[in-house]
């Protein structure tokens, strides 16, 4: 004990603190999720609200339980750099930044390669929806801040959803809203607990868990993120990592498309709400 700072009696002992019992490990089983109230095909409840950032032309905040993301849209503005030459199309700049405290490991303030790559993915996912051909010589900036992350895949999909809601809120002409959704393939059954080598997992086909959280992501064999424009029936981005059979992929694409339709309804609702609120003010 630090006698200089702690002026307690000589025989004092450290207090007994009761830690929450929730520390035990989650083991994937068939139809049994980390969050026991969810079914494999269920997403977390989504809270989406637009117009929370005053300075931005459009903004959105999304929350899927422990995943919390804020997004601000600025522009369209004229392209400052002269050297780039004339472009008949506008540019969509997306930048995602993880807050230093957002993940289990502290992140740095400088943009790391992963953030740069996610930024590129987000801009590729949103560009097909935005009418950039109507905005020559201009640029739109989308800034996304991840306040709390609960699984990278779900974070990425939530960021895309929030960014497209913010773009719509900014009044930028779009073909459709982009909804994004993630799914993880998690091997279930007894084999995973024994060994972690790839060979033992292959015995039973993995189960698809929609919108997996961090705890589930640790057990995943692979994951997919799908961005989709529901009313145009067009996939704007797909990102899959990890090994999987073709059948699993096509099945999870279908699941994701279905889930994106549900997210689309939430986005619609949030945008309608922001309009009615504006009217009442």
């Amino acid at each position: 004990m630090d006698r200089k700072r702690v002026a307690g009696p000589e025989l004092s002992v450290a207090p007994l603190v009761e830690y929450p019992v929730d520390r035990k490990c989650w083991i994937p089983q068939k139809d049994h999720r980390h969050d026991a109230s969810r079914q494999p095909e269920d997403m977390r409840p989504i809270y989406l609200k637009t117009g929370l950032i005053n300075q931005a032309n459009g903004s959105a905040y999304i929350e899927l339980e422990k995943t919390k993301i804020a997004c601000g849209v600025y522009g369209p503005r004229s392209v400052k750099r002269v050297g780039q030459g004339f472009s008949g199309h506008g540019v969509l700049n997306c930048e995602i930044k993880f807050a230093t405290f957002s993940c289990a490991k502290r992140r740095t303030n400088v943009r790391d390669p992963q953030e740069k790559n996610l930024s590129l993915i987000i801009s590729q996912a949103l560009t097909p929806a935005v009418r950039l051909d109507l905005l020559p010589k201009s640029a739109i900036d989308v800034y996304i801040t991840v306040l709390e992350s609960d699984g990278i895949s779900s974070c990425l999909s939530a960021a895309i959803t929030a960014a497209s809601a913010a773009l719509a809120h900014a009044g930028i002409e779009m073909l459709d809203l982009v909804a994004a959704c993630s799914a993880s393939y998690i091997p279930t059954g007894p084999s995973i607990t024994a060994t972690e080598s790839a060979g033992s997992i292959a015995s039973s086909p993995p189960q698809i868990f929609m919108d997996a959280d961090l705890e589930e992501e640790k057990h995943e064999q692979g994951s997919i993120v799908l961005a989709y424009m529901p009313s145009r029936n067009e996939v704007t981005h797909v990102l899959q990592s990890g090994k999987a059979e073709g059948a699993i992929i096509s099945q999870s694409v279908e699941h994701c498309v279905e889930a994106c339709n549900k997210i689309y309804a939430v986005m619609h609702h949030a945008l309608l709400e922001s309009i009615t609120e504006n009217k009442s003010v």
Partner: protein
Amino acid sequence: MPSLISPAERDFILKGIECNIRADGRQRPDFREVILETGVVSQTSGSARVRIAGGTDILVSVKAEIGPVQVDPETGDGADKGQIICSVECAPSASQQFEGRGADDLNNELTQMMTRILSNTSATSSSASSAAGINLSKLCIIPGQQCWILYVDALVLDYGGNLMDAIFMGTRAAIFDTRIPKTEVQDLGDGQFEFEVLDDAEDTDIVDGREDMPICITLNKIGARHIVDASPLEELCTEAKLVVAVNRSGELCGLQKGQDGGIEPSLLLEMIQFGKTIGQSLIKQLDAMIKAEADSDLGKRQRGEPIHKLGFFAQ
């Protein structure tokens, strides 16, 4: 590397692809001729050079170095695993646009894609499966302390379209060429270990699980059709591209959409299937090429003949 295309040229390419004939006479699912050569750089543990006829020239080197194991602080995973660290660099000599910081975005995109498919820890982390077939546990020397780190570096020397596929072909060949020295671990008692690297050039380990390494097929959606192995001009007409990583048993090891266009879900599934079929047949051809070269090298070595390599930029 051109960055602009005239409407007339775009129209020509678009209509050609619609009729299943491309500017260089190929059909939609045709690859250009590939030159593949291994063991081209003596300083590396394994190296390969890929040239796609018509331009793209890539040198991939694998260097095996000893380093500390990387343990994930959350899961405690990785104590008994080696690592693969990937990087892609576009040489400024390949194109004026790669000069200075011009290639940064492209380098980062390719590096991240490669890392995601090979080491599978970058964008979406996974702990259960070993990386892209390679058995990382075999790369561990002393669990919890030392392991082999494979640095996979791809250098783009010339640009002629379809970088990603060429990089993966090269990486697969370079990993096939990689020889890791054997190590001998001694137990000093009470948890202390010491190891020695044996410097016998004849008696080395291969990378375990190299046959299961995936390759990439990039499908470019132009109009309502999709093509493989696009040339630079075709890449400029591409609305959306889909990178499909597939291994020899037909499992998908990665999938990523690129560029600023959309794809219908039904077409997406069709493209995945198409990429899978093409990828599997390409892996067979590549394996035959690698095997033929290794056999001829071995024969020459046994007969004491010098081994001649084509070297860089050879057509």
